[in-house]
């Protein structure tokens, strides 16, 4: 019998809070990350140091490496003239050292290989690069109106524009109208482990420890560039120090490491991106500007909604953040228009950062909703409840299980929302204004086809479960064993899970909040096939491999997760300092597989949302095109002292339309809506409406008293 599709699995291990299985390695520091491996003949590496461009656009005239090469310990300096030739240069981000073109400031223009990190770094300093600079456009402000164009599609394959009904007529006829311009700055993922790779080419196979969210995708992307078969690349990522999207796709440093390894056959090469270089070479969330217009009935019911988003992309490779897509499915309303336009700039290549699209888009939409609530004199929670759609407005499909209202109501009760004064500036506590705010959260339920899992019967009733998934801190190593245990109907302790290696069956990216669901489905399908093939008492050694090409239960439904975020802030009346004193997120995400690790994911999302609300801003130098705030002292991320009063909760539910485990994703929804809830709370505290992130203290100086 062939198991065509994974069937729902009764939960036993799934749903139980259990400790992270790789915690001991992590608290001792014995877990090894991409630059820390000495096995597979990777000891005694050459150290690579990247020399990056100091112009935003133009040509490299000459790379003078003589001083660097004269330095003891420097072995090689690669540049566009002597680096190994790529078999494909179609992807301009990944066409490292292939020609003299410079597309952004911070691009790799040379690579120094040396016996020690000190020599490599000093060597990089000694390389002198001569340029022919050309005029560059590096900010949205500098782009002309004609520079904005409609991309063919936006990130994740969404349509660029969508129009339903007659928005202008709907707005014109609406009793209440609100309109605003909202913006979010460029933000950098900034995982604590810098992007890094250690690689060795033995003449036929390139072995690479990489800091990535997707080992197979790295092999598949790099192979054609390096002129290799995918089977000639072995990529391993046993531990990854966070990514939040930046390690979801391979970036130029991985290509540089691989090329360098191929240039010095037999000798391993270790390349660690410096923290400063990460602000140019490893992706980031591009700046977004949203124009939102809403027309509503006097009671707040939305009639017409427009979300027009613009943003920047890189001239050398397009990435269009799907900022307006949440407005397509979030609330009811007959007339709707959502559009995306981007301007190609001479800047580093943007990419995924936690909840691309939803994070900036829901900031705009959920602040606009707060403004609508104010305009209609309706409570912000009630306003959202009133705008609950019956069917998904975008597709007309029924939702899988849309429980936004329950999240809002449970959150309101737990947060003590009922006692909230309706008008702003109502609460003063000493030197502080105090206010509360709410926002909805949402994230689509993505499911990625093509995951393969292998189940092997071992001695003593143990089972090997193998899949090339990656645990970037999400808890995948813990939860996939729970899923496998239930699928095989054995104890978790009997499962030996292997992940993080292209020698294992192929897996998709740890991203889109789709890793666990997609990998888990493959494990369930393989396990069910294994039982069909080998029964309950298999002979040791037998094995079954299963690939999940589809999970058809999802067809015909609009699959989304929902949540509600409540924030309490204090704003200092004399300095404008803003502190978030309470933050509550209530989520509907299907079955929570492991409450311990899921809770940490929600908390991490909330904290990154708070961090984006208050601190994060990649300030681009309008003259030179680089990010000025290119380190952790100037690019602030939330620290211990910024985080207090956090709570998370979730609804008990199962969603077998989404996955056989009943789960949906948990990694991204926590960041969505959080900045809006904080901005809305700041408005409630002070009466000041902030439509641009981050909410810095200067915005709350000289606050006029309300009448």
């Amino acid at each position, binding site marked *: 019998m062939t198991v065509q599709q994974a069937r729902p699995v009764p939960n036993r291990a799934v749903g*139980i809070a259990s400790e992270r299985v790789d915690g001991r390695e992590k608290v001792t520091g014995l877990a090894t990350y991409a630059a820390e491996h000495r096995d597979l003949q990777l000891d005694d590496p050459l150290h690579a140091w990247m020399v990056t461009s100091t112009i935003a656009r133009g040509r490299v005239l000459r790379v003078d490496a003589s001083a660097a090469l004269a330095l003891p310990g420097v072995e090689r300096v690669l540049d566009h003239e002597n680096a190994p030739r790529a078999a494909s240069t179609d992807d301009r981000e990944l066409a490292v050292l292939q020609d003299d073109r410079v597309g952004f400031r911070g691009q790799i223009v040379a690579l120094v290989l040396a016996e020690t990190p000190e020599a490599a770094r000093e060597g990089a300093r000694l390389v002198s690069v001569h340029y022919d600079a050309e005029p560059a456009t590096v900010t949205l402000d500098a782009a002309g109106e004609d520079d904005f164009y409609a991309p063919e599609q936006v990130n994740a394959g969404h349509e660029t524009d969508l129009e339903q009904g007659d928005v202008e007529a709907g707005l014109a006829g609406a009793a209440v109208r609100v309109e605003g311009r909202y913006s979010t700055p460029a933000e950098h993922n900034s995982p604590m*482990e810098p992007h890094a790779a250690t690689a060795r080419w033995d003449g036929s196979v390139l072995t690479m420890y990489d800091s990535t969210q997707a080992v197979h995708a790295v092999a598949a992307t790099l192979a054609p560039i390096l002129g290799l078969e995918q089977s000639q690349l072995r990529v391993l990522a046993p531990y990854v120090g966070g990514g939040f999207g930046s390690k979801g796709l391979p970036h130029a440093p991985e290509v540089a490491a691989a090329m360098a390894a191929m240039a010095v056959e037999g000798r391993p090469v270790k390349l660690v991106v410096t923290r400063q270089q990460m602000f140019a070479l490893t992706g980031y969330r591009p700046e977004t500007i949203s124009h939102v217009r809403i027309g509503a009935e006097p009671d707040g019911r939305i009639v017409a909604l427009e979300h027009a988003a613009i943003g920047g992309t890189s001239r050398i490779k397009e990435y269009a953040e799907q900022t307006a897509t949440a407005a397509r499915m979030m609330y009811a309303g007959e007339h709707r228009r959502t559009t995306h336009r981007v301007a190609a700039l001479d800047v580093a290549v943007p990419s995924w950062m936690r909840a691309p699209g939803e994070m900036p888009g829901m900031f705009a939409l959920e602040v606009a909703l707060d403004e609508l609530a104010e305009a209609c004199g309706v409570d912000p929670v009630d306003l959202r409840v009133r705008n609950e759609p019956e069917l998904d407005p975008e597709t007309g499909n029924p939702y899988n299980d849309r429980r936004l209202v329950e999240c809002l109501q449970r959150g309101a009760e737990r947060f003590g929302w009922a006692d909230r004064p309706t008008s702003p500036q109502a609460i003063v506590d000493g030197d502080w204004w105090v206010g509360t705010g709410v926002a909805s959260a949402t994230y689509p339920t993505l499911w990625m086809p093509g995951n393969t899992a292998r189940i092997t019967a071992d001695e003593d009733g143990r089972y090997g479960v193998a899949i090339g998934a990656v645990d970037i801190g999400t808890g995948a190593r813990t939860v996939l064993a729970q899923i496998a245990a239930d699928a095989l109907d054995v104890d978790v302790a009997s499962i030996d899970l292997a992940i993080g290696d292209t020698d294992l069956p192929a897996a998709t990216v740890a991203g889109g909040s789709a890793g666990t669901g997609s990998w888990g489905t493959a494990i369930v399908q393989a396990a069910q096939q294994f039982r069909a093939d080998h029964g309950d008492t298999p002979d040791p050694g037998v094995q079954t491999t299963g690939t999940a090409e589809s999970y058809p239960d999802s067809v015909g439904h609009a699959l989304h997760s929902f949540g509600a975020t409540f924030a309490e802030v204090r704003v200092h009346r004399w300095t404008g300092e803003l502190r978030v004193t309470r933050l509550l997120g209530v989520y509907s995400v299907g079955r929570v597989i492991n409450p311990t690790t899921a809770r940490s994911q929600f908390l991490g999302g909330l904290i990154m949302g708070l961090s984006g609300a208050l601190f994060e801003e990649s300030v681009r130098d309008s003259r030179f095109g680089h990010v000025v705030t290119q380190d952790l002292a100037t690019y602030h*991320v939330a620290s211990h002292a910024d985080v207090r009063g956090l709570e998370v909760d979730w609804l008990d539910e199962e969603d077998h339309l989404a996955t056989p485990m009943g789960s949906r994703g948990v990694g991204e929804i926590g960041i969505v809506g959080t900045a809006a809830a904080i901005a809305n709370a700041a408005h409630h505290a002070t009466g000041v409406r902030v439509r641009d992130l981050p909410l810095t203290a200067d915005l709350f100086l000289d606050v006029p008293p309300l009448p």
Partner: protein
Amino acid sequence: MDTSITLTVDGRRHDVVVDTRTTLLDALRERLAVTSAKKGCDHGQCGSCTVLLEGRRHLTCLTLAVAHDGDEIVTAAGVSALEGGAGDDAPTSLHPLQEAFLAHDGLQCGYCTPGQVCSAIGMLDEAKQGHPSHVTDDLEESVDPADLDDDEVRERMSGNLCRCGAYGGIVDAIREVAGGAPREGQPDRPAQPEREAAR
């Protein structure tokens, strides 16, 4: 220029040749293959490289190895041998603070974690010695680690960034080990009761 120094790391003595430009962090990671100390920024801005240097928490990326000839270093891989730890260097034994990190899930990716652990141990010792922090009200009064409230712990740990956002669990873990009261405020949703693994 190369020079030879001696470092004791987690109880083991090493003679090691370093470049005079080698940071203490790179001496550990690149010369001695001690990778428990992590490099997150190389600029004193993240705390990942924190170890206990001569008994005090210290950023190893901000100091040159040659300045530490003869010094004693304890990383998160060696803290179990410290006072309060299990006392042997078997890889399976953990310092109570590490156990508490596991129990409170004060980690996700684990990259900041060794630095958080070392920093927390050093911080509690500073408190024991009476060091005040920026948020200590009374600078005259002696501090007891058990009395450190959430704000004190957060303030004293703010040099250790965690991009995964495991801060809540880290503070819980530290307060548990410090012997203080449980955290103020509403608890988060408690973990679901262990369901019977009915089988």
